[in-house]
């Protein structure tokens, strides 16, 4: 016989569908982004400043594979976390599946294309060329 003080344990079956993994992804990528995104904000916007950001600075930073790896992880987690968050918000307000289905497909493609486009940029960026361009640019454009 159950008493009032006894704990009631209710087991819930967890479906192994995409929604569940999206839910878990938001939690785990969120923890990763606490380090990656907050770290990025502190390093690039407090210790450094966008007030004196030049393409020379990008060339120096992406000269190191450590920074390229950091930015690559940040890119993948932040874009997927953010766009999936937008999908969650939209699903709260749009209840018509016929409208929501194409939006979800579009957002999915958008995540993949954005990560590929920017990922290739991070991987193939040529620091030496960027430094050369910076030299020409600082002579051509005043105050740069």
């Amino acid at each position, binding site marked *: 016989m159950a008493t009032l003080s006894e704990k009631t344990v209710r087991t819930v079956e967890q479906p192994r569908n995409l929604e569940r993994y999206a839910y878990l992804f938001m939690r785990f990528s969120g923890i990763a982004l606490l380090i990656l995104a907050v770290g990025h904000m502190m390093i690039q916007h407090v210790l450094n400043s966008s*007030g004196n950001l030049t393409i020379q600075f990008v060339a120096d930073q992406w000269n190191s594979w450590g920074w390229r790896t950091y930015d690559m992880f940040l890119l993948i987690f932040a*874009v997927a976390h953010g766009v999936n968050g937008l999908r969650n918000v939209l699903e709260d307000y749009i209840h018509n599946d016929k409208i929501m289905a194409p939006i979800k497909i579009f957002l999915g493609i958008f995540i993949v294309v954005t990560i590929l486009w920017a990922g290739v940029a991070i991987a193939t960026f040529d620091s030496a060329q960027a430094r050369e361009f910076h030299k020409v640019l600082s002579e051509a454009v005043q105050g740069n």
Partner: protein
Amino acid sequence: MTSLLITLRESIRYRGRSGHYSWIAHRLSGLAILGFLVLHVWDTANANYAPGLYAWSIDLFKHPFFAVGEIGIMAAVLYHAFNGIRITILDFKPEWWKYQRSSAIFVFILFVVLFAPIGIYMFDEFLHRCTEAGAACWKIPRVSDYREAYRLYLDTRGG
């Protein structure tokens, strides 16, 4: 349109108190970060694909409009990160749900305490930079100048 207005009004009126306010703040900060993130990622990719355009954009981002926006994004990232960790902990530890109200207040205080010095520092740095630059601080860079410089650079490489 009416349904949107009702949604907006009821979203603010719904009396979930602290949990409700953190939910609103989490959503708005998340959307704000995403808006900037998409712009930032596609723009930074241009450092590789279109260096002239990229160099122009980072000078444009030194304009006061973006400098103030940058401080706003810093606030959004900090709040969203701390509150997101709170949500994750409560999701995996439902028995701690009894602390949901105090944890929401704790996150807000933590955010204020950490953001205040950072925000003041960033704003101070911006003021110094803008005062030094004078009228140039408000100038919007011309994209054609940067395109020309990039062509000049390509010429020096080719020649």
